């Protein structure tokens, strides 16, 4: 029996779907059997980022209404035997599914998979309630921005009322130089405001966007820092204690860059 993890943030555009795709891919790389569920009905993206858009035949709403068998709607990943996706419907809206149906689907999936990763839509309405219905654990994604942290705080408050383990935090799109200058929130500051366990920090990288556009999660490319961060997060989910990628390293890199410019000018 596997476990279901919901990935949520409250605010839109912080990188929930990218995080879901990359954590799923990283867990699959580590040999786990993983199923991703996109619950963003009406605005589905996870299939695009996974590069599986053109393989969708049935979707979450069809399964919820018993129009097809669960295994018929699951799409096998191109690259991994052990990675599957349950896509959302694009033509309906969030109210097409109710929490009870989600619970049933997630429970069924947990029988066959080690990890069920649920991609939550933005907001705190029906879509959010659906997404957290079957979850055992939760991960809150935030950006180092005040508005995003505010929303994450709200979401954590809502998650604490549910029958879910205390949520864990991923700080996404961290810009080291902005944090250095005090132009964006500090990771320590974010953790002290939200007061939950930090699961990982993902630095901002244009390569992540490029990879998403190509339908290949960045986690597949081991050379980038973002990819390393996602793989570390996956290992932490498995229970390994992996130290946080030191930000001093970033500092070193930043100093090097500054030095580089210093020499040039």
């Amino acid at each position, binding site marked *: 029996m596997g476990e279901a993890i919901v990935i949520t943030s409250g605010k839109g555009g912080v990188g929930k779907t990218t995080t879901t795709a990359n954590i799923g891919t990283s867990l699959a790389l580590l040999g786990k059997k993983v199923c991703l569920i996109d619950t963003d009905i009406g605005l589905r993206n996870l299939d695009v980022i996974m590069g599986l858009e053109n393989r969708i035949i049935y979707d979450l709403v069809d399964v919820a209404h018993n129009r097809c068998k669960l295994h018929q709607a699951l799409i096998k990943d191109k690259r991994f035997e052990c990675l599957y996706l349950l896509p959302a419907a694009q033509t309906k809206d969030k109210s097409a599914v109710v929490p009870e149906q989600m619970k049933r689907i997630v429970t069924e999936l947990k029988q066959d998979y080690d990890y069920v990763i649920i991609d939550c839509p933005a907001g705190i309405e029906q879509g959010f309630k659906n997404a957290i219905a079957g979850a055992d654990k939760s991960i809150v994604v935030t950006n180092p921005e005040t508005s995003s942290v*505010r*929303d994450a*705080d*709200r979401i954590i*408050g*809502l998650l604490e009322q549910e029958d879910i383990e205390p949520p864990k935090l991923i700080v996404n799109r961290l810009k080291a130089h902005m944090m250095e200058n005090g132009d964006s929130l500090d990771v320590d500051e974010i953790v002290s*405001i939200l007061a939950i366990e930090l699961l990982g920090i993902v630095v901002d990288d244009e390569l992540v966007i490029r990879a998403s556009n190509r339908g290949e999660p960045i986690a597949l490319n081991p050379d980038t820092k973002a990819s390393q961060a996602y793989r570390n997060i996956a290992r932490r989910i498995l229970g390994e204690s992996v130290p946080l990628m030191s930000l001093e390293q970033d500092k070193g890199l930043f100093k090097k860059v500054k030095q580089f410019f210093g020499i040039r000018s």
Partner: protein
Amino acid sequence: MAQKQKQANNHYVTIKGTKEGLILNLDDNCTFEQLLSELETKLIHPSENQGSDGPKIPVNVRVGKRYLTEQQEELLRKIIYQKKNLLVDVIESEVITKEEAEFLKKENEVTSVNRMIRSGQILKVQGDLLLIGDVNPGGYVAATGNIFVMGALKGIAHAGCEGRSSAVVAASVMIPSLVRIADQMFQDEEDEQEYSGGCAFLDEENDEIKLDSLHILHQIRPGLNRL
């Protein structure tokens, strides 16, 4: 036998004069109607001796262990006011209803809560609030009494939310987005000065909320000590 005499002599109402005014002792062992009729007679007779156009005399009415309903209180006030140049200052009763007692008890209690108040969450208590945790931006705590936050107050705090203007807000880290005390409010917009160990209180002179460091609080609100 004694009771009969008492009834005959109408001794349920006794009047005592002091420097501050009159004290009306109303016996609590008779019916309310008996009291009323005796009051009427007693208050009329002396008025014939004194002039009725003197200054108004405050009256302290003591009803002993008798519980008066609001209507009864109103009736008493009316009778005393009509009869002479008397003005009821207070009506003192030694008994209160269970409801009132519980309300008073709660009003003086400190409710301790150990959790974080996150954005969008509301915590409202009767009496004083002792919060062991932070109030995050967007969070709201309110109390009919004082608010003490053991962590950082970054959200909204409303002390004395039912009008008690002597209420205070105190926090280990005071960076509130809004402080309200009774019907006044305070927004720190100019300088975001951070008080480690700060308090907010209502300054009666200017009728505005002031933020200051904690150690001046004992001078301003000595009533906070409950030793």
